[in-house]
């Protein structure tokens, strides 16, 4: 596994919605490269014909009734958790299209 390039690190950070300062690009680049080199040893395992394991509970389709429940919290309590302005019981976010 080669060293991640600065541009690759910037691209990953952008996908992850994280801003990196210039000096962080090389710091994270080195750290991420060392982690990728470590997890790369999984490539040496012969997994031909092996089924992937998503979960281990043995449960399938845990259905429940389609009922509306408030989870014990009111609308006001839930809205009070938001750091943004509340307008007519809705959270006002910055514009999705820019100002």
């Amino acid at each position: 596994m080669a060293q991640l390039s600065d541009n690759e690190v910037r691209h990953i950070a952008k996908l992850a919605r994280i801003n990196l300062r210039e000096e962080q690009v090389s710091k994270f680049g080195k750290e991420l490269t060392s982690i990728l080199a470590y997890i790369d040893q999984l490539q040496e395992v012969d997994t031909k014909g092996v089924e992937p394991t998503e979960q281990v509970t043995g449960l399938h389709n845990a259905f429940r009734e389609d009922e509306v429940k408030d989870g014990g919290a009111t609308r006001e309590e839930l809205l009070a958790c938001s750091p943004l302005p509340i307008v007519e019981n809705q959270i006002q976010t910055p514009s999705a299209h820019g100002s």
Partner: protein
Amino acid sequence: MDMNTMTIAKAHTALKAKEISATELVQSCIDRIENVDGVLNAVIHKSFDSALEQAKNIDQGGEFNSPLTGIPYLTKDNYNEKGVPTTACSNVLRDKVYIPPFSSTTNERLSAAGAISIGKSNTDEFTMGGSTETSCYGVTKNPWDTTRVAGGSSGGSAAGVAADECLFALGTDTGGSIRQPAAFCNCTGLRPTYGRTSRYGVMSMASSLDTIGPLCKSVEDLAIVMETISGHDPMDGTTSKNDVPQYSKALTGDIKGMKIGLPKEYFIDGMDAEVEQSVRDAVKVLEEQGAIVKEISLPHTKYATPCYYVLCPCEVSSNMARYDGIRFGHTVNGAKDLVDYYHQVRTDGFGDEVKRRIMIGTYALSAGYFDAYYRQAQKVRTLIKKDFDDAFANVDIIISPVTPGPAFTIGAYEGDPVAMYLEDIFLDSQVMAGIPALSVPCGCTKDNLPLGLQMMGPQWGEEAILRAGDAYEKATEWSGRKASL
């Protein structure tokens, strides 16, 4: 004997006999926190007033029907408790402190039994770490040596139990976060079978791997807490409807004829000699009690930790998406649009380890890499699970060290995340297989640092490891040792 040093079992007997009151018991823990937590930093939010009020009500009622009635405990800061500041020790929830309007199922079940949450305990940020060094509140110190970490991520819970700030504590174990700090601090800890305890109301890190479990002062206490917190929860679709055994009844002290496997892959070249000796000594103790110990092989052991550090970050990158500064948490002013807002909130709010895991997960799940990383790790997970299925066809439980060495010094792995990940090497296989494993004190180094013995059972096999752990604990002196603070 100071009340706060009691086990749950002992305190329950004393409460029932009216030798002590719940108020006195809670107050003894509060006093202890006030005396020692300035040094330890295990407790990051104190709920003392509400705890004393609950204790008063319990004393007035005078009924101690559950073994947990009136018992004070600490709650790891990633569990939501209604009305109690809850941050998972992250700035993304600390700056505009998150006060959840609901409680986790586990806290609800404990409350219903009369147990009293007295505060929130320190953890690595969103449980990502093995030392509490990634907590936005700073590191928890080890009660045995305050230049060392208490372990993590449930380091506040382990230090709190070991230092008698509470009678027990709640932890979470995704990749060893209950067992490792328990070993570092000389308490007991249980990672249950995945699906045995409800994850509802606990902030998710890696949803297919996260488990909810206790840290206690004895194996018997683990059994007592597990009886109350286990079982199906309609709010967590991954919990099992299997009956919850009366775990306390499993503690017969009789392990004659129990078949115990010792996996050769856990005794690696260059491992700490004192760790190896402590486990070899434990084997002798178990054999003297009539257990049959034999060497076994779990061939894919070495791949468990790399497997974990693919699957966990992938799930992290998805789970952390909810901390977007909209419904709760940190906010910023002056973002030019919504995407910029997300960037700024996450950049400010998350620490470096969280960012590393989000980025590794984002990379591993991105187009062109999915099969090589995520899919391959899921296949290796199958092989690790099969190792255990094969082994448990021949043995009842498996034992190993918990950690490669004793608690490390604060800052030892700064700037080297992979070296920190290697602290997990004995703790990730069980996670991949979804099996239960406990940590019980089994010795100390020449520097008086605690060491832990790990006991693993088959899926839903908590009773066997609790029985063996209890029998081992009662045959040795390790569990009762206390750090001088």
